[in-house]
C-alpha cells in the first residue's frame, strides 16, 4: 500500500521534526523556548495554502470533466486544509499571548487567515447540505473556485488595511535574517507536514471513493 508507506514516512519525518525543534534548533534569544511554536505554526499554514490550492484544482477539474475523482480531491484537500488552518490560528494565538501580550489582534495576517478558515468551513458546511453527489460537487466547486480566487484579494486588502501597524517580517523584501539551524528545522518540519497532508489526502480520497461506490 502506497498510502501506508506514506503514513510511516510522515511519522518518521514528524519525529525528526520534533527532535530538531527541541534538540537541534537553538533557544531563541529574545522570546526563549516559546519561539519553538514556530516549527508547528509556519509548516501548518504553508500546508493549509497547499491544501486550498488543491481544492481549487479539484473544483476546476470537476467542472471541466465531471469526473468524481476531481471532486474527491477537492473534498480530501479541504478537510485537512481547515484542520491545518485551525492549528495555525490556535498555535499563533498561544504564541501571541506571551510575546504580544494578547490572544488575538486584528493584524493583517491574522485576519486574512481567519477569513480563509471561515471560507472553507462554509465550504465544508455546504458539502454537508446536499445529498445528490453531482449537485453537491457542482455547488462545492463553484464555492471552492470563488474562495480560492478571493484569497489574494483578501490577503492584499487586509495587508493595506493594517499596513501601518504590522509590517511583514519573514516574507518581507529584505533577505531572510533567519539563522541556518532554525531554517533547517523549519524545512524538516515543513516536509513532515507536507508528508502528513499527502497521507491524509490519499486516505481521505480512498474513503470517499469507497463511500461513492457503496452509496451508488
Amino acid at each position, binding site marked *: 500500500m502506497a498510502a501506508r508507506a506514506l503514513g510511516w514516512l510522515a511519522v518518521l519525518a514528524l519525529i525528526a521534526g520534533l527532535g530538531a525543534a527541541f534538540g537541534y534548533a537553538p533557544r531563541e534569544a529574545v522570546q526563549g523556548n516559546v519561539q519553538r511554536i514556530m516549527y508547528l505554526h509556519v509548516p501548518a499554514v504553508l500546508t493549509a495554502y497547499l491544501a486550498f490550492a488543491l481544492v481549487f484544482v479539484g473544483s476546476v477539474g470537476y467542472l471541466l470533466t465531471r469526473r468524481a475523482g476531481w471532486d474527491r480531491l477537492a473534498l480530501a484537500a479541504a478537510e485537512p486544509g481547515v484542520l491545518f488552518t485551525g492549528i495555525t490560528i490556535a498555535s499563533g494565538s498561544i504564541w501571541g499571548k506571551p510575546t504580544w501580550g494578547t490572544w488575538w489582534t486584528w493584524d493583517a495576517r491574522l485576519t486574512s487567515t481567519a477569513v480563509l478558515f471561515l471560507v472553507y468551513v462554509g465550504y465544508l458546511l455546504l458539502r454537508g447540505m446536499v445529498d445528490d453527489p453531482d449537485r453537491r460537487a457542482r455547488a462545492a*466547486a463553484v464555492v471552492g473556485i470563488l474562495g480560492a480566487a*478571493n484569497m489574494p484579494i483578501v490577503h492584499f486588502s487586509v495587508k493595506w488595511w493594517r499596513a501601518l501597524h504590522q509590517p511583514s517580517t519573514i516574507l518581507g523584501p529584505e533577505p531572510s535574517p533567519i539563522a541556518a539551524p532554525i531554517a533547517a528545522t523549519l524545512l524538516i518540519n515543513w516536509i513532515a507536514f507536507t508528508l502528513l497532508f499527502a497521507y491524509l489526502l490519499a486516505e481521505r480520497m480512498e474513503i470517499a471513493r469507497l463511500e461513492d461506490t457503496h452509496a451508488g
Partner: protein
Amino acid sequence: MSAYVRRAWMVVWKDILTERRSKESLNALVFFSLLLLFVFQFALGPERARVEAALPGLLWLGFILSGLLAFGRTFLIERENDCWEGLVLTPGDKSAIYLGKLAGNVLVMIVVEVVLLALFAVFFAIDFTPFLPGLAAVLALGTLGFAAVGTLFGAVTAQMRARELLFPVLLLPAVVPVLLSSVSATQTVLAGEPLAEAAAWLKLLAAADLVYLVVGVLTFEFVLEG
C-alpha cells in the same frame, strides 16, 4: 451580442414585473432599513460625534444586512411553478441569466441604498449633498462586487436545505475584501477628501468586482443545472 443582452434584459424585466405585481421584496426591505436605523440609534446613543465616527461602517452594515435578505431571495421565486426548469431550458448562453439576475439585484440595492441614505440624512441630520458624487462611485463599485457574489451564492444555495443559514455563512467571508475597501473608501469620501485619496481601495474594489464577475459568468451554468 444583442441577443445576449436581450436575454439578460428579459430576466430583469420579468423580475421587475413580478415585483411590481407582488410588491413583496421592496416594501419589506424599505421597512427593514427603517428598523435598522432604530437599532443603530439604540446601539450608539444620542451622542452626535459617535454617530458621525461610525457612519461609514453603519451605512455599509445597513446595505449588507438588506443585501443578505434581498440576494437570498433572488432565485427563490424560480423554485415555484417549475420556473427553475424554464431557466435551465432557456436556449443560449446561461450566463446571460446570471447577469440579468445580477442587474436586478443591483437595482434593488440602489433603491435600498437611496432610502437608507435619505433616512440617515433625516433622522441623524447629516447633509450628504457635498459627498454625493464620490459616494455614488464607491457605492456603485461596492454594490456590484457584493451583488456579484450574492447572486451567485443565492443560486448555489437556492435548492438546498438550511439555505437561510448557509447563504450568509458562505457570502460574508467571501465578500470581506469588498466590505473592507467599501467602508474605507466611504470613510475617505465622508471626511470630505478627494476620491483620489481612496485610489488604492477603489482599485482593490474594481479588481474584486472583476474577479467575482468572471467567476460568476464562468460557473453559473453549472449552478443552474439545479
